[in-house]
């Protein structure tokens, strides 16, 4: 693909991610950290994030009793849930995953008020976003590699 085209495409992709609220300023911060010494820094970070947060997701699912054996068997451990969510939120915010972060905040609020149902619903919502973002970022980074090393961080308009 033509390099310029790739770049343009890349820029558009990124722009839409921002416009749709999937990414925030933090992502730009990461891009600005990227330099010759770490040319794929952002991609590395995102990869790391998804790898690490996957275990948090499993842990969350477990805590929320998302299992076939039946729900509401035991009361939700809101404290534990909140702790995991705190971690998850911190992680997600550090890569700029805006929507994921917002959902996390919501879940934490439900934990605080002891709303089990709210927790579950929010979690499912969050997970959807989490997975969707992953896909989009995968595509994005693929394009970045295609576009070549010239791609630099640029702020979305």
């Amino acid at each position, binding site marked *: 693909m033509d390099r310029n085209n790739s770049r343009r495409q890349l820029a558009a992709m990124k722009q839409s991610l921002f416009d749709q609220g999937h990414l925030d300023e933090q992502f730009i911060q990461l891009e600005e950290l990227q330099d010759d010494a770490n040319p794929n820094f952002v991609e590395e970070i995102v990869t790391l994030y998804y790898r690490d947060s996957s275990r948090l997701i499993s842990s969350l699912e477990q805590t929320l009793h998302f299992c076939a054996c039946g729900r509401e068997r035991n009361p939700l451990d809101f404290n534990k849930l909140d702790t995991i969510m705190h971690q998850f939120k911190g992680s997600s915010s550090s890569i700029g995953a805006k929507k994921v972060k917002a959902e996390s905040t919501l879940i934490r609020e439900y934990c605080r008020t002891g709303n089990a149902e709210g927790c579950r619903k929010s979690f499912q919502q969050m997970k959807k976003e989490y997975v969707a973002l992953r896909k989009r970022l*995968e595509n994005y980074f*693929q394009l970045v590699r295609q576009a070549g090393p010239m791609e630099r961080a640029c702020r979305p308009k």
Partner: protein
Amino acid sequence: MNLSNGKGSISTVTSTATMKSGEGSDQFPAGLRVLVVDDDPTCLMILEKMLRTCLYEVTKCNRAETALSLLRENKNGFDIVISDVHMPDMDGFKLLEHIGLEMDLPVIMMSADDGKSVVMKGVTHGACDYLIKPVRIEALKNIWQHVVRKKKNEWKDTEQSGSADEGDRHPKASDDGDYSSSANEGNWRNSRKRRDDEEDGDDRDDSSTLKKPRVVWSVELHQQFVAAVDQLGIDKAVPKKILELMNVPGLTRENVASHLQVSHYYPPCTSETTQKYRLYLRRLSGVSQHNNLNNSFLSPQEASFGTISPMNGLDLQTLAAAGQLPAQSLATLQAAGLGRSTVKPGLSMPLMDQRNLFSFENPRLRFGEGQQQLLSSNKPSNLLHGVPTNMEPKQLANLHQSTQSLGNLNMRVTGSSTQGNPLLMQMAQSQPRGQMLSEITSPRVPRLPNILAQPALSNGISDGLLGRNGIASSSRAPSFNPVSQSSSYLNFPMNQSTEMSVSNFPLGSTPGISSMTNKGSFQPDVNSGIRASAGFPNYDIFNDLHQQKSRDWGMASQGPMYDSSSHANPLHGNIDVSPSVLVQQGYSSSQQPGHNRDPSLIGKSPFSLGEGLDHSNLQNGGQHFNPLIAESSTRVKSERVPDASSQTNLFPDHYGQEDLMSALLKQQEGIVQGENEFDFDGYSLDNIPV
């Protein structure tokens, strides 16, 4: 990008560069050594990258325990710590407390939580800043300010505590004023007067009593003291009752009184536990020092060290004169520490150790002793007190101690030159704890100098001291490189051979020391002074390094009293030498900042002087001391001569040290007269004209 699930492997600890001591200080804040702790690997990696972009030296770890052991192993290896609040193995606030207590480094907390209560918790636990995640690089660019501020505050603290104390308790009358506190009975007063007199024969330890054998406040003794005070409660802890509770044969009320003195001075602790603890420690260590210091403070004018003497062991007067502030602060600290029986046993212990060293050293101090008697005579213990108190956790304590010892020493040292020595000596003494030293020195280095400054070695020393202190130092340099500071301190005397040792010193002191750019104004005056100062620089570092070591200084003779395991600090080993270094004034100047981190070096120089001091103690084995001494003696000699000039340079920086050193030296000289291991002759000891 492969986003498949799976555990990432993140190295637990990675370091961007080897910890270099003191390097890059000239490009401050570049090279700031940051330790970042976060269990989240993503955040950790981002932070590391951001910090590297800020040109900091980054070490990251994902566990609090790892972080703590890293910090413990590398005293003075880091300038600032950034830690997450929520971590699986240890609560971030707990880590914060530990760091504050043990290393006293500035700590920045961070969390995704921005709730007011959690931020407040950070503040109350002593965090110097709180960052909300996600952390932006802009927030990290300015973290160096916390390092500078901390150092500055420490320095100021020392000064203030000292001055506050004095102001309150003792009228700043040149002559001793009456130490208002009952504890003072006569001791201080006497010491003050003695300072003026500067008579050798001053052994007036107590104005009222005849010369008494100096009380060595050993660890056990101090523990008993603390226990008694605790039992009675600060308010009711009057010497008489304490004495009764302690039930130590041969201990007099005056001894207790002067040992207690400090506690009264110390102002109430801050809310933070860490601070409290620190203060306590300081107090403990400073108690003895305080005594000495007080004296000196009282008569600031007495700058002339020579006259100091009557102070209990420490020529507070001298100290006061020279570095009034420090003494006061020390005293204050000590008092505070004492007053608060909150000291944890653990902490107090170290202090005690120090004390032991000190006391131990005292006999060794030879000159110190001799001097002491002359000088302060009130309380022989003063010397000791100053020194060892548990400086460990808190370097302050060391400072105190050193100060105290120095004070005593200085007092004796009549004349700036000599004075410097005792002070230095003291300083060295107080620094038995290498760690403490570093801690203290680093950020606190200023403190030391203060004390030293007090004695006002009149010669440039005072300048030097202040300069040395560097803390405040703006003059001094490299803010960041604490190491350099210390080195300067140490280097001071050590220029010559001891450079090594000198550098060691800085190690201990780290940041604090850096301020000390020793060279300079210090003017050691002295050969004697220099010696003291020389030693002193070591002392500073020494203190940092080993708080205990400083003790050794005085205790050199004692030998390995130093058992504080902690002092094992790397510096510790090095510091051994410090005492000699201190002594070696001759070393003057070579202390370049470069040396800073060379603990080994430090040890060397001081050792020569310190030999008497107790190098061995430092090392914990006492034995080591001797060999050093032998070395040092030769060294000393040679050094001395040239030093005079070089010393001056050195001194300016460590002026404060010098005072202590001189004080110490003086004392030592007195003690050592016979010994000559170190070859004191050339040493300022001679100068210590009491």
